């Protein structure tokens, strides 16, 4: 596949992986998270998305050199267009850039070896460790997500875990505890960051706008637990 459906490309992003990066937002997601802050990227087709060839995407990226150290693919869910991703990452490597991806972890990385080899780091969303909670939130099981969590860490490709914090709706504490447990064998082998994201109402669909983040006290508590568990850095946004 040499074309992909792209919602937007941000030339300079300082919040999608290490350093300054160009972020490519793919259209279409197989999760339907209630708190999604860019729900326009969820449908597989969208009037605001553009079908772009590999060459076109590369041209945008190239025009951002030398100001970026790499690209980050996001979405939507970028791994749903994994063939395109692989072709893109192959080309960006030739340009001396690093490749990061922001993923919901629903596609098994065990079946994407070549893509993973071209990937420098993965930002993996672990929305909820409890499966019934995950289904309630996203409409899908987290089985593959948790397998990916372990697998990516074992390959040294897990750059960051991301969990959105919501008061009273989800067991945030349970999630970070279970993630810490799964990653226990890997803390000694490399750095893994954790990003805690306060749920926000901007961009969120109307019925879910009332979700609120937990208290600052709770967030500090979560942060301390993660640092004690062995994460190299905990970022709260």
């Amino acid at each position, binding site marked *: 596949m040499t074309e992909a459906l792209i919602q937007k490309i*941000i*030339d*300079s*992003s*300082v*919040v999608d992986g*290490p*350093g*300054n*990066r160009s972020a490519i937002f793919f259209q279409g997601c197989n999760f339907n998270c209630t708190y999604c802050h*860019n729900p326009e990227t969820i449908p597989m087709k969208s009037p605001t998305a553009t079908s772009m060839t590999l060459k076109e995407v590369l041209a945008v990226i190239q*025009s*951002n*050199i*030398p*100001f*970026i*150290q790499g690209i980050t693919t996001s979405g939507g869910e970028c791994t749903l267009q994994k063939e395109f991703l692989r072709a893109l990452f192959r080309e960006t490597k030739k340009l001396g850039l690093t490749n990061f991806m922001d993923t919901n972890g629903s596609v098994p990385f065990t079946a994407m070896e070549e893509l993973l080899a071209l990937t420098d780091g993965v930002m993996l969303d672990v929305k909820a460790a409890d499966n019934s909670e995950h289904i309630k939130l996203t409409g899908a099981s987290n089985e593959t997500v948790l397998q990916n969590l372990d697998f990516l860490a074992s390959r040294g490709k897990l750059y960051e875990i991301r969990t959105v914090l919501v008061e009273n709706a989800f067991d945030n504490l349970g999630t970070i505890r279970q993630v810490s447990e799964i990653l226990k064998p890997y803390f000694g082998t490399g750095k893994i960051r954790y990003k805690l994201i306060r749920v926000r109402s901007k961009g969120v669909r109307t019925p879910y706008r009332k979700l609120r983040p937990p208290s600052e006290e709770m967030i500090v508590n979560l942060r301390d637990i993660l640092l004690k568990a062995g994460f190299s850095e905990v*970022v709260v*946004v």
Partner: protein
Amino acid sequence: MVYTEGVIDVKIYRNHQETVADVTQIIQDASLTYEQQTLALAKLAENQLPLPVGEDEEILELFEKGIICDLDEGHGPYAPRYILPDYEKFFAQGSQFLRLEPPKNLLEAIQTLQIFYHHVPSITRFPVYLGRIDKLLDPFITDREEAREQIKWFLIHLDRTINDSFSHANVGPEETVAGTIIIDLIGELQNVTPNLTILYDKEKTSEAFALSCVTSSLVCANPAFASDRRFRDDFGDDYGIASCYNGLPTGGGAFTLSRLRLNRIVDEAASREDFFASHLPRAVDALLRFMESKIKFLAEETPFFTSNFLVKEGFVDLDRFVGLFGLVGMDEAVDNLMKKEGRNLSYGIDREANELALDILDFIQERVGGFTSGYGKVWGNHFLLHSQVGAAGDEGTTPGMRIAIDKDMPLYDHLRQAAQVHPYFPSGIGDHFPFDYTAKENPQAVLDIFKGGFESGMRYISAYSEDGDIIRVTGYLVKKSDLEKFNQGEQISYDTIQYAKEPLEKHGILNRKVVGVND
């Protein structure tokens, strides 16, 4: 000639009453400190003299039209505008005049520097160049904790006694213990003085040190980044960054800085042809003449270069001083020239407009380069171009070569455009970018952008946090909270606050496009 506040910054006193009125105003001004009053009175006394260029009708006319501006340098310059003493030499040999031996430990090093700084004049009376303070102090550090305490008080001393945030110190390119301590302290101290620049070279500066410099700049707007490689290409090893962001030879400096408002020249021209054939060359030639007369006066009719201890003991050398030929208002100049041709093309944004700017710079570079001064051997007896950034009366004139703030430029396009003009200005040009809170979490991103800027051809760039109290105005730092106090009529210890008022309140500095989260 009529003196209009802010627009014409040269005042010719015609009678005793005018002098008395100004003296009275200065000594009754409650918002000035005693020191600021004294300096204003000294300037007033100096300005009783005729201009060194004499009764040159053409120059006076250009002054009146706001085309030439001498930045209130004064009519009888009796010391160079910017002095960059050879501090390494001072540390090696001490000073007879100051009765100081070479320092033997950190305490002595700091004390001798502080004493020396007191005796370095400049246009503001305060030293505009404090040297590579990390390299000067580092060899004396034996105990890190003790050094931290001493350097902390060194920095506090500088801020409280050098009441002028043009005063500039340099660090880098290599990481040193002293440099690390300085960068670590400035965030905590939140001082506006000294203005600080890291001489950055990605081959010599460690990533960790560069990142701590970025992090610091997002907390206290210091330090700015200079491309060490580019400045070395221009000046060799012996240079420093002084005042706003001015690259100059050490052991020397700049005699004078006067400037042309390019936009005001365009106002007079009927067309592009008329501008290039008549108005621009006339203005350039007039400014060259004006500057040369000033330098000659300073070098030959004042005792500085024969009697000052800095000269006599070899800390500066007449031949290592240059004249700075300043330019402002390129943005409005280009846009207006385009308009005169009925074309709606805009500097910064449109390729043809940017090309016109380069044509203007090529023309000026050639004309200024074609003038042989009696002074400035270090630069082949030529003046250096300087992209100057603002003075009183600059409303409607964008600083130097910058793009007007209200033009919404994408970041990389902005940097690339800046990179096209930076090579013309060895003696100073710079761009400053406010970043939002997200950058504090990711200083690496800011460093990536800086590296890209340098790779594209920029020579100087800085960041500050949009929500911080300290802001880099045009090149120097002030606290927004101090400006509020100043506006209430309170005295502020540093003089730069007076210069910041117009840029912050009228020139839209606070509206610079913020870099950060885009979604």
